[in-house]
């Protein structure tokens, strides 16, 4: 994040940052001032931080093992020794809900970063080199049409098919998520780079003799990456939903492993007969997590856009 803050034009309302630790301190103060002004952003960061901490500390926070089934206490309602009750096999729902973000977040974050790296990289190259020559136009058309084809697939069936092809494993789910999301980043980056490369400072760098790679790396990409970063957070939320959905139909994480979607699926039959807790709690956890990442994405969208950040920091005084 710091590299982005550095590369964007500095808004006039924020005093030019001094060097070193003081600069970091000022940036932090600005950040907290914004969180005070827009409490919903603070909620978002709070949720994401909490979920990450829970994922890291799950073994110490959970009262029971996430996969220890005690058949003598199956389907206990919430309360007593089991805070959120137990499921049909006698596993403690609270412990499982705490353990689930480990796998859900890991899959979503890795999948999203893979798609952002590949999609963003290819998008930047296509956007930068796209030009008048026939072969360049042909290559870019081909890449964009392939993206069209990928996006024309019914997302969910496509993801299930990918998991079926590569075998049911965490790696396959990551791959499916990466596949489904890559075209989004490809488009986003291409459009950004196309508009940035026409700017004067890119021209100046070219005239000064910088190589294409150096121009891309030093000037074009840092200035066009902001919307991609904002998209990342929102996309992690979606990917958690997709992972859960895949697990729900049985094409994702395999059953006893604690995962929110498969927990909802395991409680499916119980819900119909009246025991709501095995399904409802993991769903709520899922929902809160996705909301958190959505809010962080929204805040990044504002903070990384120089114009909107200026409006916001102007309203702080």
């Amino acid at each position, binding site marked *: 994040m710091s590299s982005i803050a550095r590369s964007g034009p500095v808004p006039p309302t924020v005093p030019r940052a001094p060097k070193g630790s003081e600069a970091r301190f000022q940036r932090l103060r600005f950040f907290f001032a914004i969180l005070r002004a827009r409490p*919903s952003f603070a909620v978002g960061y709070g949720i994401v931080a909490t979920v990450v901490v829970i994922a890291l500390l799950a073994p110490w926070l959970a009262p029971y093992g996430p996969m220890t089934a005690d058949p003598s206490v199956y389907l206990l309602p919430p309360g007593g020794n089991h805070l959120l009750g137990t499921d049909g096999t006698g596993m403690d729902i609270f412990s499982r809900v705490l353990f689930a973000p480990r796998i859900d977040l890991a899959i979503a974050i890795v999948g999203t970063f893979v798609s952002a790296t590949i999609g963003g990289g290819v998008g930047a190259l296509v956007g930068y080199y796209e030009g008048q020559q026939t072969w360049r136009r042909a290559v870019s058309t081909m890449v964009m*049409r*392939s993206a*069209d*084809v*990928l996006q*024309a*697939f*019914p*997302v*969910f*069936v*496509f993801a*299930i*098919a*990918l998991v*079926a*092809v590569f*075998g049911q494993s965490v790696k396959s789910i990551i791959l499916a998520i990466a596949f489904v999301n890559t075209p989004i980043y490809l488009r986003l980056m291409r459009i950004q780079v196309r508009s940035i490369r026409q700017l004067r400072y890119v021209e100046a760098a070219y005239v000064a003799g910088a190589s294409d790679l150096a121009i891309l790396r030093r000037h074009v990409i840092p200035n066009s990456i902001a919307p991609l970063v904002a998209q990342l957070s929102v996309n992690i*939320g979606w990917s958690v*939903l997709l992972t*859960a*959905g895949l697990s*729900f*139909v*049985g*094409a994702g994480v395999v059953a006893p492993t604690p995962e929110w*979607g498969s927990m*909802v*699926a395991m*409680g*499916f039959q119980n*819900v*119909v*007969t*009246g025991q*709501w807790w095995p*399904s*409802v709690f*993991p*769903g709520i956890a*899922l*929902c*809160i997590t*996705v*909301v958190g990442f*959505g*809010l962080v994405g929204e805040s990044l969208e504002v903070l990384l856009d120089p114009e909107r950040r200026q409006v916001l920091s102007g309203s702080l005084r």
Partner: protein
Amino acid sequence: MLLRYIARRILYVIPQLFGIILVSFLLVKLIPGDPAVMMLGPTASEQSLAALRDKMGYSKPLWQQFTYYIGAAVHGDFGSSWQTTRPVTEDLLQRFPATLELVTFGLLAAIAIGFPLGVAAARLQSGPVHKFAGYYRLVAGAIPDFWLALVLIFVFYTRLGWSAPPLGRIDMAVAPPKTVTGSLVIDSLIVGDVGALSSSFGHLVLPVLTLGIVNAGPILKMTQTTVTRALSSEFVRYAEMCGLPRRVVLRQAVRAALPAVVTIISVLYGFLIGGAVLVEIIFSWGGAGQYAVQGVLNADVNPVLGFVVFSAVLSLIIYLVVDLIYFALDPRTRG
């Protein structure tokens, strides 16, 4: 002018469709599991397996299989499913109306929730309605539809007993109406069969509500953004200065926001055809998405391919229709 536009669009769509079929063909061929073994069981002799593979064309090189598939697909033949032992085209034609009924009513519900709320939130820049719209926008995109479906079933079926059980589109005991459009609700309306109407409507309520609540989010967001922008634009200020009544001004602003809203609705429609799978499964809807998922999980190749092609064609048709609506709504595109 219009006809030429449509013709160009279709010309542009053909290579895309070809790409879709090619990718899904290769993908589906890669799914592990031998259909011959699945059909005949593990005890079948090597000879009968080879004979069956020959009969189904699986022993030929991949490119020959593909050209054969494309050739047959152009004539509407997508092979047959070994699970149902029927031609895929027949299976899909039987199931797609169910999916379309669910998705169309679900989308209508989403519009009914999202559009008025969006207009109201744009009109009132503060107050409870604006606040509620903000929260709704935030949460709607985060609710897993399969979870919401279960919660609705628990509340309205298990606890209150108001709705039909989540088992299919109509009660087992009730005879479905004669097929006209494929939608049970509309068909029983046309035929005038009150029993079938109330039964099929009762089964439709919860899944449609699920899809409506979840998918109203994007519609709400788009409506609110574009109407807000329209309300702060020059032409609205001019209309206000001329002293037109508030209601008329609002109507003009909403009219200007319509093309963007129609676009987001079309995107949602295309997405939902394959995206309502989870809701279909929970309510045992017997739709096309459910059929495709069954196919993937059982190495049944042809249903998956057929579904992908069908839904791609359907969403392309939807996009085309939406473009035409766009033509009618936005005078700038008429040139």
